């Protein structure tokens, strides 16, 4: 495999593909990742808040049954392998996007797979908060909504950013898999050229670009989390 990978023929062919298709693939991957993460946060953040606030001793206790259902649904969605989930949500995708294949269509299964994960990440961020801070807010006459909006979320911002960074890098990895259902991007290039047509060099380059993207997202996220954390003396 290796000897065929670096022949001058393979290299020039790879460069051509790189020039013709990589920029667009890179754009597709970024767009799908960012949009899927955004939607996953829109759905996952409120759920994560409910998981903490809705507990028996939380600021907004919910009926035990509701909490139970919430937990089971989240665990259920999290336990389905992504490859199978992609196929299972075809009808839903068709309903929302109009088609079940293609780049935009791949956003739906990504969101479905990621929002329960984001909910758990938000839950863990909010649980890190010192309970005495919440008691303080209660002692000052804060309502449950005020505690959530003015205390729990702002005080957890550094931790939430760190966890959202984990989410975006995980979703980036998943986008590569969506190449299988016709989702575009770097994953598609890696699979179509590398796997189906034995152009391993193209696959290698696509993977390297994915690695660089993960590094990039991670370091931006970490920098932001540290920069915004006022507990750190800058």
């Amino acid at each position, binding site marked *: 495999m290796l000897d065929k990978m670096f022949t001058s023929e393979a290299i020039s062919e790879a460069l051509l593909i790189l020039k013709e298709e990589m920029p667009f693939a890179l754009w597709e991957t970024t767009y799908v990742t960012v949009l899927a993460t955004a939607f996953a946060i829109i759905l996952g953040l409120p759920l994560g808040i409910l998981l903490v606030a809705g507990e028996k001793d939380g600021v907004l206790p919910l009926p035990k049954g509701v909490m139970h259902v919430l937990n089971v649904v989240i665990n259920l969605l999290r336990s389905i392998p992504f490859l199978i989930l992609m196929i299972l949500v075809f009808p839903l995708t068709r309903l929302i996007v109009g088609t079940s294949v293609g780049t935009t269509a791949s956003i739906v299964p990504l969101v479905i797979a990621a929002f329960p994960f984001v909910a758990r990440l938000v839950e863990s961020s909010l649980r890190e908060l010192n309970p005495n801070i919440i008691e303080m*807010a209660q*002692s*000052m006459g*804060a*309502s449950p909504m005020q505690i959530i909006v003015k*205390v729990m979320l*702002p005080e957890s911002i550094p931790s939430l950013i760190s966890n959202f960074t984990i989410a975006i890098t995980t979703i980036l990895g998943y986008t590569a898999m969506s190449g299988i259902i016709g989702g575009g991007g770097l994953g598609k290039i890696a699979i179509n050229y590398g796997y189906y047509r034995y152009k391993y060099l193209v696959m290698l380059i696509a993977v390297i670009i994915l690695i660089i993207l993960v590094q990039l997202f991670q370091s931006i996220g970490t920098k932001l989390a540290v920069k915004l954390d*006022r*507990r750190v003396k800058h």
Partner: protein
Amino acid sequence: MIEIKNLSKTFRTAGGTVEALKNISLTVNDGDIYGIIGMSGAGKSTLVRCINMLERPTEGAVLMDGQDLGALTQKELRGVRRDVTMIFQGFNLLMQKTCLRNICFPLELAGVKKAEAKKRAMELLEIVGLPDKAESYPAQLSGGQQQRIAIARALATQPKVLLCDEATSALDPKTTHDILELLKDINERLGITIIIITHQMSVVEEICNRVAILDGGVVAEEGEVSAVFADPQSDAAKRLVFPDGEEEVVPVHPGERVLRVVFNGAMAAGAPLITQMAIDEKIAANILYASTKCLGDKVYGNMLLGLPEEEETVQRAVKYLTEVGNVLVTEVTGNA
């Protein structure tokens, strides 16, 4: 006025029910600095949380100016909590917000306009002596400074009552003293009633006018601080006034009369008071017990003096010592 009437609180835990408070009745008058003291686990923190209904009493009532707080809805209670604010051992500041925004926080909750809240917060920063820390974050401040910010925050809604839950326990003696001075100042200048929960007798000694001693969930003793100090009745009070059990070894000679001298911030650190009394009044006092400490130029603590038995000598000694100011002198009768 806050009246606590027959208040009990039980907790259900996995290991059965725990009676944290048993039939507590106390009255805190307007303008008091009321100390509630007890060892760890005596139920002090639970009691203070019952006053603002962070903990619902299992039985009994808390009346504030005659209003039963237990009968209020959650919404009404939130309003009351602007009148009864709280400071904590761990300060509990919002770490991601500036000091200014921390102080604005209760005003923001109450829906006060931003500009107005900011103006009030700046005044409060002045009162607590940190006008230059408005834009600092709590992590940049020392413990004492953080507690000052917490006090400013607690004063923002112009409360009638300030609850202090072990507010000085995380601070060193000097800072503790400074914070207590600030609380005293707030009590005097703004007329705010202060309820102090503590396990440190020195805190009660220094600023409280009344004290309740909590022991095993019941009030063991209650009254004027000077009276409790001069003549503790209950075992719990004796343990707190004489933490080392020193009183047991105080020798009382036959015919000797004993005075308890309580120093409550007397300006006597630089003066040899007892020696001076011997020179000025020619009274030879025998120091039987002494536990005093100096904070700045003031003295806190108490002392037992043995005096000759003539009534006239005792009277002169009482007069001499009382004239120093901030000194409380009482005669100890029976075996002290």
